[in-house]
């Protein structure tokens, strides 16, 4: 058994930042990640970091843009924390050596981004995430922070009181990918989940193969609610054949979208008469699909993004990486022809419910980054707001777990007297556990009596049995088949445009995936670097997470941010200024709601029409 004060699961931007902060606060911290840190998907972020750094800008403007962008489903205390902390935390990155793009006077450059009232997106070429990830890993090396890389965390070790609010998390169970050994990691002060997004629940995604919602699923099964999971961002400019992302920076610099008739449709078809291509991402994604559905798409599939008029010099200076991506993954030279683009799953606004300090309702369990929902993005995340979330809330979670006092949070977590139960929606199938699938979440018994070591040991034992079971089973279904079916169901029915009928179909298919998973087996007999085993376990996580996305999409019968429902195509503030929460209770999802907090420090953000 390994033991540290703070265990951080995942070593992308949020995890690395949390580890550095916990280290600075004096804790003995370790990172446990299924990838070596520099392989993490933060490295694929292109655009930049929103921070109110310059004269004429301030955090309140950034907060206002973010609340508006969220379609008034973000919690104001979270948004104000983000926008207040982002400038300092961004400058910290510069102090650590991040190679930001520069102005003539040597200061860091900022550029316009969608939905922003000020050009506050601080960037390093079109590869901001790559530099952020590497500079943060450099700080981990500098501080000698322990990294267990290529260790796959399977589950949390939590106590099992009936009320999740009374549970405690004492560590994690992980297996060493290289050797196959399953071991316990005891966390004396806290476990921070920083496992990134669940994009692999979808077929066409900008997310890495590793983005399998592991943290979401572990926290969910341990009793922490998942919040606003139905809010999935579909990025308007991904390459059609692979899903590779083309940065919003292209439009920020002046790139133009055309349909097959050569029309600049964002204006000519009235989708966003003021901001055009730089409207919020959900607006642009829907516009593109509408063009295709109405027969104005190129090859009935995509639209064109043209940046040729920006000129070679400017493109090479600010968007060079985009040229490589378009060339390598679509065979298109962005300097001489427009690039084909279509919406692709990109980001999950929802996630593990946490407060401003990164805490879940389970004592000692934290989450930060894309896997968490504070919530700062609400119904739709603005471009350039993901990276500041990583550094701001990664840092806060790290400090808090290490014992720093960050003050009382305004945001409440877990089931409580301020929530409302879901009662209306009829489900097409029984969601939740299908019965036999081993690792169930909380530790076996004796929540109040067992000590931390005991709980961890039991969980390690159960994980070992689970692995043995999967390895020893000789026949059945393989994960790849189930995963593909799940991804198709989500992309077919829980995409940009959603209908009640479609989402119900998806829930039925997800149920089928769960039942098929009962018969899953691992064909590779080796304990050495068994990716078959790892992907089999990831697939279970994807099923759990996909189900919460579909459940959220079914119950929320309105159109807000990235979530569009055919049956009620308006933002229904009367009924839906509330977060969707789904928690796992005795093997079944329980759905409830918590009102959104629109009251900030000094003012209330009144919901307004969101036009761009």
């Amino acid at each position: 058994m390994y033991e540290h004060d703070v265990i951080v699961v995942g070593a992308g931007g949020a995890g690395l930042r949390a580890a550095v902060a916990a280290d600075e606060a004096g804790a003995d911290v370790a990172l446990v990640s299924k990838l070596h840190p520099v392989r993490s998907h933060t490295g694929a972020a292109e655009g930049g970091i929103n921070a109110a750094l310059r004269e004429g800008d301030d955090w309140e403007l950034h907060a206002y843009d973010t609340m508006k962008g969220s379609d008034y489903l973000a919690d104001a205390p979270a948004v104000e924390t983000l926008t207040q902390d982002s400038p300092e935390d961004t400058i910290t990155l510069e102090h650590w050596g991040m190679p930001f793009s520069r102005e003539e006077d040597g200061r860091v450059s900022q550029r316009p981004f969608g939905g922003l009232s000020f050009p506050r997106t601080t960037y390093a070429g079109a590869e901001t995430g790559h530099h952020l990830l590497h500079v943060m890993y450099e700080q981990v090396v500098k501080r000698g922070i322990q990294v267990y890389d290529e260790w796959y965390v399977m589950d949390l070790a939590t106590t099992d009181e009936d009320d999740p609010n009374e549970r405690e998390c004492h560590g994690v169970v992980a297996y060493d990918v290289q050797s196959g050994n399953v071991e316990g990691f005891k966390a004396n002060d806290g476990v921070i989940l920083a496992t990134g997004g669940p994009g692999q629940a979808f077929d066409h995604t900008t997310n890495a193969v590793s983005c399998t919602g592991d943290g979401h699923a572990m926290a969910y099964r341990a009793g922490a609610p998942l919040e606003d999971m139905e809010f999935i961002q579909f990025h308007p400019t991904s390459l059609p054949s692979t899903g590779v992302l083309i940065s919003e920076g292209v439009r920020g610099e002046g790139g133009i979208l055309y349909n097959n008739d050569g029309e600049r449709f964002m204006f000519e078809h009235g989708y966003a008469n003021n901001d055009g291509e730089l409207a919020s991402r959900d607006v642009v994604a829907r516009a593109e699909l509408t063009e295709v559905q109405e027969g104005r798409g190129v090859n009935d599939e995509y639209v064109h993004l043209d940046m040729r008029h920006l000129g070679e010099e400017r493109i090479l200076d600010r968007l060079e990486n985009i040229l490589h991506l378009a060339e390598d993954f679509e065979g298109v030279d962005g300097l001489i022809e427009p690039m084909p683009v279509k919406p692709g799953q990109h980001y999950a606004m929802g996630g593990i419910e946490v407060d401003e300090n990164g805490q879940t309702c389970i004592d000692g369990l934290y989450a930060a980054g894309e896997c968490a929902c504070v919530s700062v993005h609400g119904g739709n995340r603005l471009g350039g707001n993901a990276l500041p979330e990583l550094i701001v809330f990664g840092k806060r979670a790290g400090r808090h777990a290490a014992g720093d006092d960050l003050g009382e949070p305004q945001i409440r977590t877990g089931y409580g007297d301020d929530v409302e139960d879901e009662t209306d929606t009829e489900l097409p199938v029984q969601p939740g556990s299908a019965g036999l699938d081993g690792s169930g979440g909380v530790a076996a018994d004796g929540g109040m009596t067992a000590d931390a070591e005991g709980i961890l040991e039991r969980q390690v034992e159960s994980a070992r049995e689970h692995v043995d079971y999967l390895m020893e089973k000789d026949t059945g279904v393989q994960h790849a088949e189930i995963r593909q079916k799940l991804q198709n169901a989500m992309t077919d029915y829980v995409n940009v445009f959603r209908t009640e009928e479609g989402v119900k179909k998806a829930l039925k298919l997800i149920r089928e995936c769960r039942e098929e998973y009962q018969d899953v087996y691992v064909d590779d007999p080796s304990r050495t670097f068994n990716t078959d085993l790892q992907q089999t376990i990831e697939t279970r996580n994807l099923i759990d997470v996909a189900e919460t996305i579909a459940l959220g999409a079914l119950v929320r019968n309105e159109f807000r941010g990235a979530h569009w429902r055919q049956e009620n195509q308006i933002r229904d503030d009367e009924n839906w200024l509330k977060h969707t929460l789904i928690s796992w209770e005795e093997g079944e999802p329980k759905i409830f709601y918590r009102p959104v907090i629109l009251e900030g420090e000094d003012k209330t953000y009144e919901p307004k029409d969101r036009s761009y």
Partner: protein
Amino acid sequence: MSTQQQEPEQPESQETPKDPEMKGAESPVDEKEKETGEIDQTTADETELEGETVLIKVFRYDPEVADKQEPRFDEFHVPFEKGMTVLDAVMYARDHYDSSLTFRHSCRQAVCGSDAFFVNGKQRLGCKTQMADLEHPVRIEPLPHQEVVKDLVVDMDHFYDQMHTVEPYLQQDDLPTGDLEEQRQSRENREKIKMSTRCIWCGACMSSCNIAAGDNEYLGPAAINKAYRFAMDDREDEEVKEHRLRIIEQEHGVWRCQTQFSCTEVCPKDIPLTEHIQELKREAVKKNLKFW
């Protein structure tokens, strides 16, 4: 509801590597073919491949599994699709024929640096290499000069150790005071270090380098490039720069490089590694730093 799983198809044939020494200790070096790795003139046109299957020969080794302890090549016929990369091909083979086929991969867009393989005798990123640009059949092996863990997975620990040796972090304690003040850096200086900051730690350069193959302590192109990235960054002071030069000019540092350009040739991010190494040599000479 259940589905009947069909038996995974066995690879159509197995072939023993030509190098009998290759018992997992090191990946195949003799296999290196005398080809430049540039787009081959003889390759099939993409349109010719459409609707066809392509043949890949993949290196297999697993220290734990009886019939894989002796390294071998498995052949897989993969249906070709426009735009198919080497990574797509091995993923297809894994997901449809043999789920034990093992390789690292994650982002699929040439930024995570996980999937550097030895493809038709050259170090390349699987996700960035189009099948249509290669001579067929396509031979896929783990990176040479590194210990093979299993199939296409090599042990990267030594590579990481070398990267860490050069103190890969900005060393500047004298930071601007006042609220939210960044250090100033000229556009020219940022441009100077730009290419060096693009490294994705894939290890292709180190694997291609004959010197690194013969001298295990040689820092290697990636680590020296990392040192360059900081040594050339004006945000560090002169004395730090000198400290950095002392690290890279030692016996197993820059002077080992014989400017063969193999690293520069294989770098998937087009970093001029050899030039960076040469420039550091000149800097060391200017400062009269010579380890001998």
